[in-house]
């Protein structure tokens, strides 16, 4: 009888998850040529000589590392600030969450309008302060485009980091702090030896989730720059999308997806090992 009840779930899992996975492994091993389909690792070896892929990979890492660092430091700072009893704490906490509630596409459109070099709000505001905005073309400048898309991600996702870390802070009991106070530790020592170690589970969760999201970022960049100008903000997800749905090369796109999956797994494993190992000591 239990098998009967499980059957629908198993059928759905097979149909929606296992089958596509096996299918994508199969097509990643196929290459379409004029002579027909050939099998092998051709798609994977092609990755190594594809400048677009390698550049997109580098962009993805720059994007992920820069955005993660900013989001984590800002989020931690905000969480520490708003964990104290300050006036209007509720208002701050609520308003900080707004960016996170917006769909990424909406965020992309809003910022695209604000960053418009000719008609946008940001340059218009800077002009009011007498700043020459002639060279500040934001998403249109190869130098500033990456900075712009990272800034938008930080704007949208710092609240998430803040929220998780704040929850973590509030779960820390008072006793270790009292003990530290009695032992005469400074504020910095308390933070370093009490708060941070006890916050580790939350830090691990937030780093894991953000890294996975950052490595596969697609929507905001697609709306903001479509990977441009030139190739300046093209990330792997955008390139995979283009390869699959514009060039119709599903095999190559599947191969790239598996590389991204492998990289994400490796990085996640490192996090877990690093942060959990110390916790058990």
């Amino acid at each position: 009888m239990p098998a009967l009840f499980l059957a629908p779930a198993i059928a759905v899992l097979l149909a929606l998850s296992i089958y596509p996975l096996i299918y994508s492994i199969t097509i990643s091993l196929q290459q379409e040529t004029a002579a027909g389909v050939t099998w092998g690792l051709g798609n994977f070896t092609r990755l190594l000589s594809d400048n677009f892929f390698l550049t997109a990979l580098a962009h993805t890492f720059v994007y992920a590392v820069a955005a993660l660092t900013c989001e984590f430091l800002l989020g931690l700072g905000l969480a520490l600030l708003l964990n104290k009893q300050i006036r209007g704490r509720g208002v701050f906490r609520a308003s900080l969450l707004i960016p996170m509630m917006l769909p990424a596409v909406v965020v992309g459109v809003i910022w695209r309008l604000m960053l418009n070099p000719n008609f946008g709000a940001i340059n218009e505001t800077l002009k009011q302060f007498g700043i020459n905005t002639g060279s500040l073309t934001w998403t249109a400048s190869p130098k500033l485009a990456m900075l712009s898309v990272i800034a938008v991600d930080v704007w949208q996702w710092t609240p998430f980091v803040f929220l998780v870390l704040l929850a973590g802070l509030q779960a820390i009991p008072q006793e270790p702090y009292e003990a530290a106070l009695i032992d005469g530790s400074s504020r910095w020592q308390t933070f370093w030896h009490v708060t941070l170690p006890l916050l580790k589970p939350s830090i691990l969760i937030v780093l894991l989730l953000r890294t996975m999201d950052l490595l596969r970022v697609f929507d905001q960049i697609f709306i903001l720059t479509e990977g441009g100008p030139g190739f300046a903000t093209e990330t792997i997800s955008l390139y995979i999308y283009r390869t699959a749905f514009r060039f119709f090369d599903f095999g190559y796109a599947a191969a790239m997806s598996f590389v991204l999956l492998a990289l994400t797994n490796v990085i996640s494993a490192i996090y877990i090992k690093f942060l959990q190992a110390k916790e058990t000591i």
Partner: protein
Amino acid sequence: MRVTVYLVLALLVLLTSFTLTSCTGNHRKQLTLAVVSGVEGEALKQAATDYEKQTGIHIDIAEFPYTNLFEKELIDLKAHTGAYDLIMLDDPWFPRFAHEQVLTDLTPLLKNRGQSGPDSDFVATSLALCRHPYQTGSLYALPYVGNSQLFFYRKDLFEKYLMKAPLTWDDVLAAAKTIQEKETAGANGGQVYGYVERAAQGNAAVADFMPIFWAFGAEMFDANGKPAVNSPQGIAALEFMIQLGKYSPPGYVSFNADDVGAHLLQGTAAMSINWPAWISSFSDQSKSKVIGKMEFTTLPDGQKSGQAEIGNWLIAIPRESRNADAAMDFLLWATSAEQMKRSALRGNPPTRKSLFQDPELVAKFPAYPAQLRSLESSRPRPRTPYWNEIENAFGIFLSKANSGDLTPEEAMNQANAEIEKILQRAQ
């Protein structure tokens, strides 16, 4: 043993419920039509409603935004689902569809109706797009919307500074310089830029560049089909594009058609290449600050005479359509002079000569004579099934050269190498 029986039973129940839902309503006489959202698809949707009233044949419409239409159609056609009886295609996609052999050859269907070939009223350059190979091969579609690029310029500013209408790219550059230097108190109290280019990677940069590229005597492929964008003419054309970019608004490296339109409508730029769909907005009081000030003409000349890029919407019948005959009836009806005139009145340029010369239409759309000249002398984007990939690579390097990341020569050499790689993979 019992467990397996249950499992099989559960799967069977699931499967039958899928098949039952998917095969209802097949016996009714109906057609399914995939259209693009926007003005082009809108006209065809309204035509479908009229057709339904006249004939009683029900037409289902599947509408997709431009960015998704290509993938939806090609995935469906390659999966042989027979979901669509008629599809709208942007002409650069056509070689891919024809190459994949997923379209119906229309000639036998025409012969059944006693016609030896398509109507000779269709503009030759439009009809040539519907054949595979280009111009000479079998007919797999009919042209529905006859867009080709036009040159837009501010005739008031040209008159103000006593300049003749721009006939060559040198005229354009000189005029851009004059206007930008003298017109410093424009419509918004600010600068009027001499020209507005769009150089966002991909379609935007390539579409804006091709008329210059061709006018400079460059070709994307040489006589042997090898890529040749880094020819001296090709590099000179890119150098010219960048020079013209100095008179374009800041950030043009990321501009798309909507940015170009916005600058022209706001009166902050004086010239550009653009598509006819924008013409009507210039006389719209709620959008335009330049009512009655714009003029539309054919593309400027270089060493070679100016040629616009053609960009037509075609309608084709998928090979797996179960109602090809009924679909052909609708296709001939929708592309007939009478129905296409209705589409033209709804804002879509026709693909028939007679309609470009129709007095009622010319009165409503004064740019029609220029549009016909542009269309008849237009060129298609290179006909290759790998155009999407080539355009993407070419556009990236054009954009990089415009943003100053690469010199024109480096950009063209790298673009050439990438295009060569794409073609090699295809072999």
